[in-house]
């Protein structure tokens, strides 16, 4: 495994989000992949400590299909998003356990009508190789202000 392969994957992943290719994005997740947004600093447990999101593919699919729904009024007009990434720090090439790990600093922007909201933090990827393709086992988003009250955050950081 070369570090560049992990870095390229992460850039390609957010490109799918920024271009609103939701189905392509979902396909990047492993069957048992999880999307996690903690509600505590250096949180250890996604289930027994409160999280903002901890979702499997079924729940992420619900979100994606909701975005396209005829009666999804909070998406009229549709939101758009933009990920600005610092170069990912590759933390593990998975030599021991097959799990590649990277941590990436980001600024994320999401629109809603004329409004524009901005979030900052770090995204951690745990990736595994399945039949020659990298898949997301875990995508974890640590916001710098996870404890602040936000308005609607409807797309995906």
């Amino acid at each position: 495994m070369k570090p560049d392969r992990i870095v390229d994957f992460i850039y390609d992943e957010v490109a799918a989000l920024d271009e609103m290719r939701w189905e392509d994005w979902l396909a990047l997740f492993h069957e048992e992949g999880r999307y996690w947004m903690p509600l505590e600093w250096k949180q250890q447990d996604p289930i027994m400590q409160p999280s903002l999101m901890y979702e499997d593919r079924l729940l992420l699919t619900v979100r994606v299909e909701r975005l396209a729904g005829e009666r999804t009024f909070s998406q009229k007009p549709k939101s758009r998003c933009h990920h600005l990434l610092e170069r990912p720090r590759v933390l593990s090439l998975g030599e021991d356990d097959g799990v590649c790990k990277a941590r990436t600093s980001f600024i994320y922007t999401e629109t809603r009508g004329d409004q524009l909201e901005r979030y900052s933090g770090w995204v951690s990827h745990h990736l595994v190789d399945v039949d020659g393709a990298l898949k997301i086992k875990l995508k974890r988003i640590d916001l710098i202000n996870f404890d602040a009250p936000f308005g609607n955050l409807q797309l995906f950081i």
Partner: protein
Amino acid sequence: MDRYRGNAKAIRDLVKGYAVHRDTYVDKEIFDLEMESLFPNTWVYVGHASQLKNTGDFITSKIGHQPLLISRHRDGEIYVLHNRCPHKGVKIASEACGNTGKFFRCPYHAWSFKTDGSILAIPLKKGYEGTGFDTDAASEGLARVRNVKIYRDFIFARLADNGLSFEDYFGESLSTIDNMIDRSPEGKLEIIAAPIRYMHQCNWKMLVDNQTDTCHPMVAHESSAGTAVSVWEREKHKFTETPMAVQLYAPFMSPYEFYEGAGIRVWPNGHGHTGVSGSIHQDYDDVSEYMTRMEAAYGPERARAILGDVRHNTIYFPNIMVKGPVQILRNFIPLAVDKTLVESFVFRLVGAPDKLYERSLMYNRFINAPTSIVGHDDLEMYERAQEGLRSDGNEWIDLHRLYEADEPRDANEVVNGTSERQMRNQFYAWSKFMTLNMDQSVEAAE
């Protein structure tokens, strides 16, 4: 010019029962009067004793705009104090919670206070001798809120000196809090984590109204719960059991008939709840070991009665909602006429299996978080209403659904579950507590 200050009749005229005037949601003077009158005249939830386990533990809270500091003193008692230094008015504690040790110390001039609020020390003490300071209110330290009631660890306070007693104010409505506590085999709840916080650009009463609005879920949440149901129908052949997530989402799509039958109960002073005989919380999977522990604690009959009471949302007027079967308390904190902070707390049932806490945390992030698709649906409606109410096309909000002309104002009744009676009930109480001390103060001034 003030239209409403000191004018109890003008305020009462905003509430017709079958309709309320938009000024209750959009008028800044009305909002200011809510802060000055409504909130101080009512018993407001300010925290839970489990957040103050040890001596020196404190939490901060608010009633209306007034900052409070609640602390555990070395005598074991909880004190509700005004969070304001008697010197220059600086807030003593700025964090949501913490432990202050033996005393509070003002960061500006180092005045220090024991954790019951009394003064411990003031620098350069001699400079106060002979100044009359010792007979001034400032010498008493952090002012105490006099009317405090800790009901089974739930801390409530009333700022106004005069008003209804705690027991008269809540009456039988306390049965929802009782039921939530009784769901612990040890009869004890605890808050062990921060709440989920969610900012709403709308009036706080829109959130309160929505808690007992049983005609919106199948409409507004078609996008979220409806999609969850349709995705599940398509995907369920891949699963061996219904995931907890689907069990939590799916009941939101229950039809009108379900809610009609489930009923709404109203109580005096604006309290009330949905889900009298059944609710969206009734069909969750049993959690293994839980019933065994409940039966051991209460006996089979009482345990069944406790768990069989599946009330949906209970409003404790003015601004909290309690969800007994899921152990969630939502605090609708008014910040401005069109700005509300919602803090949703989960209680852990002491002595119950972890699975219950896991389910409550899941429910909270599914429904009450800024990242919640159900929350997205609701907030969109509130914010559209806040904008729509600017229209001069109609100055009134309609509450006719199942209205009866001779509807009693302070009653204990069960009505059809799609009635807007509880919203009317809240406004009857709103009118009462907005003007409670207004008539007296006008008379005193005359």
